[in-house]
Each structure stands twice: as C-alpha cells, then as structure tokens.
C-alpha cells in the first residue's frame, strides 16, 4: 500500500510539471500585454518598458522558461503583476476565504445528498421519491450563476433577509468578534447554499442508485432472513457498503475545495481562489495564473490519489500492488 502511494506521488510530479509547462507556454504565446494597465495617457511609456525589463518579460521565451523552472524548483512563485505583492502572500490571504465557503458547502453537499439518497432509495416509488427525483433533476440542470442570481433577487433584494454580495459588511472591521463572525455567516448563507445544495442533488442521485444496488444483494437478504430489525439491516449492512462509491466521490471533490467556486465567487463577489484566478487570467498576470494552476492541479491529483486510497481502505477486496 505504502509503495503504491509513493509510486503514485512520484508519478504525479511529472504530471504536475507538464500541466504547469503547458500553462506557461499557452499564456505567453497568447497575444496581449500584461503591462497594458500602464499604457495610459498620463503614464510614461518608459515606465511599462522598465517594468517589463525588470520582470524579464522582454527575454526570449526559452530563457523565461529556464528562469521560471529555476524559480519553481526553489519554491519561488514570483511577484504578481497586477496586485503588486508576493504570489505566495496573495494565496495565503485568499485560500482561507475559499476554504470557508467550500468546506461548509462540501459538508452540506454530502449531508443533504446522503440523506436524500437514503430516503428516496428506501421509499422507492413513493410520492417523496418522485418529488425529490424531479426536483433534484431540475436543481442540477440549473446554471449555478442563475440560481445565485435568483436567490439574490428573492432573498436579498425582495425580502431583504441576507446580504447580496461580498464577504463582510463595509464597516465590518469595527465590529466586535462575535458580531464579525455573525456578519460573515450571514454573507456565507447564499453562496454555500448554491454550492452545496446544487451538488447535493447529484450526490443524492448517486447515493440512491448505490443503495438500491446494495439492497438487492444476497447478504442483505440474509440479514433480513435472520430476523434483524430493518434499521439494523439498512444501517449496519446495506448503508456501509452503499457508502463506498460516495467516499470515492468525496475524494474526487477535493479539487472543488479550491477551484470549484469560480462562478459562485464571481456572482457573490466572494474574495476567494476562483475569483482570483478569473481576475488573474483577465489581467494576464502570469505568475498568479501559474500559481493558481499549481494549486488546483495539486488538488486534482491529490484528490484522485485520495479517492483511490480511500477506496482500498473501505473495500478490502481492492488491492493495489
């Protein structure tokens, strides 16, 4: 098992490097100028030129690449062009904001999803089953930005219950700590709802299918036959096995933690990784784009690995040798 993990981690390194190189070249080959911000009527053109020289943007592409690889190997992520700060510093500021959103969303996703899946699977064919199935079909067929806009329209603008955007109120820094937490919580409700509930619909469908498959297995019939209560049959025998694919799903949701909230963060103006990446791409902020790709690439690869490992742990029939 350990050997397998080491092997997977080792093979992930060239993968990650390929990903970053791909990003490096595609953003640099693209037309467009990261210094376009400084090409204005009242800014000396030499300023942009000097900046380009100091940042090494005038070097030949292979040279830039060598410098970049050197930076990567020494753990140097560089300076952001558009935010005038260390990229690692920006990431350190942004990642917690996103995690705050996505950890809650993931929690509700699986909590609600599993609950819905189990309920509908146990009451298969009932009215509840049909209602939940139809509504989850509609929920996961919705563009999430539109769901977000509709919630802003209904909850924030019409009913005035919750703030529409941002992470805290404009004057939040003058609040006491409990008030500050309350303020952030209020801002979180809508984005977490959009992120979590929309995916709960898909998770629920998955869970329903998985449980239905397990319920028809022989060992569940055996458990029933030996007179166990329905609660024990489902809770102890069926559910544990039905959760196996869900655990894989959990591992595969790992990249979502840092990269899944692009649209929702944009709709709700939440200062997180998704919004940061979109802004970086539009500003052609090369070091920041590479850093965001690195972060999300690591998450994807780690998520896949985690999914495989979890799979082997919960299902001892699976062996990786």
């Amino acid at each position, binding site marked *: 098992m350990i050997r397998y993990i080491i092997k997977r981690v080792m093979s992930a390194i060239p993968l990650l490097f390929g990903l970053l190189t791909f990003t490096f070249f595609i953003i640099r080959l*693209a037309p467009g100028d990261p210094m376009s911000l400084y090409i204005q009527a009242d800014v000396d053109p030499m300023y942009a030129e000097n900046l380009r020289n100091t940042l090494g943007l005038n070097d030949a592409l292979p040279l830039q690449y060598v410098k970049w690889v050197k930076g990567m190997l020494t753990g140097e992520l560089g300076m952001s062009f558009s935010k005038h700060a260390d990229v690692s510093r920006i990431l350190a500021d942004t990642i917690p904001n996103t995690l705050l959103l996505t950890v809650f969303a993931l929690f509700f996703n699986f909590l609600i999803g599993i609950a819905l899946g189990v309920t509908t699977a146990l009451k298969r064919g009932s009215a509840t089953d049909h209602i939940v199935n139809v509504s989850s079909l509609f929920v996961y067929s919705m563009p999430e930005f539109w769901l977000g806009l509709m919630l802003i329209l209904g909850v924030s603008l019409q009913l005035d219950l919750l703030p529409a955007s941002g992470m805290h109120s404009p004057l939040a820094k003058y609040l006491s700590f409990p008030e500050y937490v309350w303020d952030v919580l209020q801002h979180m409700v809508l984005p977490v709802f959009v992120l979590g509930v929309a995916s709960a619909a898909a998770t629920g469908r998955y869970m329903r299918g998985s449980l239905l498959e397990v319920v028809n297995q022989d060992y569940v019939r055996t458990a029933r036959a030996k007179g166990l209560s329905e609660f024990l049959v489902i809770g102890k025998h069926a559910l544990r096995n039905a959760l196996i694919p869900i655990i894989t799903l959990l591992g595969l949701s790992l990249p979502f933690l840092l990269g899944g909230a692009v649209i929702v963060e944009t709709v709700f103006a939440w200062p997180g990784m998704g919004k940061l990446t979109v802004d970086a791409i539009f500003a052609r902020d090369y070091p920041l784009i590479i850093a965001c790709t690195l972060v999300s690439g690591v998450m994807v690869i780690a998520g896949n690995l985690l999914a495989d490992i979890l799979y082997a742990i919960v299902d001892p029939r699976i062996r990786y040798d």
Partner: protein
Amino acid sequence: MTSRRTSLLKVFVWGRRNIPGWGFYARGSRKFGALLLMYFLAFPVIILLNLDQFLMVIESMALSAFLLAMDFDHHTLFVRGDVIEHYLATIFLVVMPVLLWWLNRRHMRTLAEDRDIHELSQWALAWREFKKNNIAASALVFIILLYTTAFLCPYIAPYHPNAFQDGLVTKFRAPFSEVTILYLKEPRVRPLGTEALQMRSEYPSVVGDLVRTNIALTDDGFSKERTVAAFRVEAANVKATVGDSLVSIPIATLAGSIPEEFSGTRFHLMGTDSYGRDILSRIIYGSRVSLSLGFVAVLLSVSLGTLIGLLAGYYGKYADSILMRLVDILLAFPALFLILIIISAFESIAVPRVVLIVLVLGLTSWMGISRLVRGEVLSVKEREFVLAARALGIGHARILSKHILPNILTPIIVNATLRIGGIILVEAALSYLNIGVQQPTASWGNIIFEGKDFLSHAWWISTLPGFAIVLVVVSFNLVGDGLRDSFDPMLNNERL
C-alpha cells in the same frame, strides 16, 4: 356508390403513404402519428402565415444564385450575413417537410407486414422501449420543437432580436406590457442608395433588385413606427409624451387621420431589456447559440474522444500510455480554468467567437469519453468475433470501424446526450463571465449577464432566459436517461 367508396379508399391509401403521420395513426401508433402529422402540417401553416416574407426570401435567393453564377467576382457585394439566416430558415422550411414525406413513404413501403420482434435491429428495439417511456419521449418532442424554432427564428420571433428604438419609452417594460406606437407615413431613415453597388456589377438591375429585397427582408419594421408613452390629439397635431418631454407630431406625417388608423401597440410577452429589445425574440434567437453550440461541441468532443479512446484501447502499449497520460494531464486542469485560459489567450484571433467557443469546449471535454471508449474497447477486442476477424486477416482500420465501433456505440450515444446539457451550462457560464458569445448577438447566457445589473427593478431580464436553460438541460438529461434505459432493458426491469 361503390365507385365513390373505392375513390375514398384510394384517397386513404394515398394519404397513408404520402402524408407523414397518417399511416402511423391508422396503424395504431396514435400518439406518434398525431404528433408527426401536426409537426408536418405546421410547415405549410408557417409558410402561409408568412407568405410575403417567404416569397421575398425566395426572390432574394434566386437573385443571389443568379449573380453568384454570372458575376462571381463581385459576390461580396451582395452576399450579406444577416440575410443568410433567412435563407437557412427558408431552406429548412421547404426541405424538412419533403424529407418527412420521403422518410414516411419509405417507412410505409418497407413496413408492408408486421415483423417478428426477433427480426428487429438493436436500434428498432431501443426505439420501441424509448417510445414507451412517456417522460423521455415528451422531452425528445420538446427538444425537436426547440431545434425547429431555432432554425425558423426569422419566421417565428415576433421582432428582430437587436431592434430597439426610443429607449426612454421602450426600455424595462415588464412582461405582458404593450408599447403604444404611431405609424408614420414615410420611413424615418431612407434605405441606402443602391447606385454605387450597381455600378460595379455587370448586372445593375439584378443587383438593384437584390439589394432592395434584402433591405426589405432584414428591415426590423421599426423605421415606419414611432414609440410613445402616451398621446392625445390636438387639432392637426398629436401631442405625445416621450420620457419627460412632450413632442408635437403633425397628423399629416402619420399614416392615417384618426387614432385607430395611425396608432397601434407592440406587445412584449416577456418584456424588454435595458435597451428596449424584446426579450422573447432574443430568447428565440439566443436558442440558436445554445442549441447549435451544445450540439456541435459535443459532436466534436465525442468524435475526438472516441478516436483517441479507440486508438489507445486497440493498439495498447506505447500508444495507450502516451494518450492516457495526455488525458491525465488535461483532466488535472479544472475544466473551467482551462477553458478560460484558452479563450482569453485566443480571443483576439480573427475567428468568430462562437467558433472559438465550440472549438475550445469540444477540445477540452473529450477526455471522459476517451476513457470510457478505451475501457469498452479493451473488453470488446478480446471477444470472439474480433479475434475471428483478425484471424481472417482483416485490416486494423476495418476491424475498428466495422467490428468494434458498432458494438460500443450505445454507451457513447447515451454519454453524448447527457453531455449536451452540461456543455450548454458551461456556455452559459462563459457568457456570464463575459467571455462567451458577445453582444449584440443574443445567447441565453449573455441575456442573463446583461440583466444582472438590473435585478432590483427589472427581474424578468435575467430570470426568463434561465428558465429556458433549465428546461433544455432537463430535457436533454431526460432523453439521455431514457436512451440508457431503452438500450438496456435489463436495467429497466430491475429498476422498478
């Protein structure tokens, strides 16, 4: 008496063969037959309702064809982009019923006697199962109707999608609202002179006719109308309120002398946007972007994914490991980042935005399919019929296309159908980040994007296109699920 009866019988026999749907209805497929018949009859009805427009397009097409044949050097003079959509709609309007007629006739001929279930192909069996699934079948009917509307939008949309005038009066009208208009005697803007164009061609009179027809065809009709908030008649003038000001318009310039003659209303079922454009028309025109883009992008990604999956699975060894590592790298990108990076990288290249988006969406979403196909190929290529084909010395290309591909087609088709919905959602999300299809071309995503700043006082702009997206994506998902169930009846039995 008998002769009348036989002639009536002849009419029935003729009708069953030549009118799509009638035969099916008579043979017992009541629902399918009735739907097909109604669909078929809708085409002549649309032609009759828009006869002027239809004839104008025919005239324009004939003139263009003539000029293309006789005077190709100057064809850029008279081929206009915005007329092409009228051409396409009209061709569709004519070809579709003929195609239906032909298919129906062919079907009725081959279906001389009832065939045993064992003689039916896999496809015919699946189709039988699919028709039994009412929900999926209704979703399919809905999708067909949507695609038809998308093709016919110049005939169906009530207004031109980009037409607006007097923003003060017409913008932000709520759904079901009416705008008062005054009909003018003379158009406010005269059509451009055609002399300059005519000079350069050898057939000046044909060019003149064509340009005039095309102008009439693409005219939004607003130039002979004037929108006002309210008006009253005072002696020889009409006093109209436009915004905050009171305008005086001489009745002599209007098309008539009494209010019933010179005034009317414009009805906006779904309201208007911030410029005063009709939302319903924009949604109808916007459906073209979402539907065609979803379809073409999925076609591209499925073809590419299938090809790569076939190669990797069939040839194995190095091909397999290289192609699958490529898949791994591309899958390690969060899809949306990849799409964003590529689109923003290539947005200044002189390719229409829709084409760019189709390419990017198609080329970034094939990885899942190729994994699926590779897995299927790995199992199918060890089966006896493939081994037999190999033993017979059949070439690789032929084995792949004739023996392996047909046997793995069903999961590919199901997957593709389920994917279209996802692609439509991604396209809408791109529009929401404002890198999708650009204004003034309407797409569902960019109508929502445009309306998001006016949520508090004009909710309908962003809300209504969203419903369109949800309905379409739900329908594609239902059809996909239905296809999966009907290709795999065993699964179906287990399910309920």
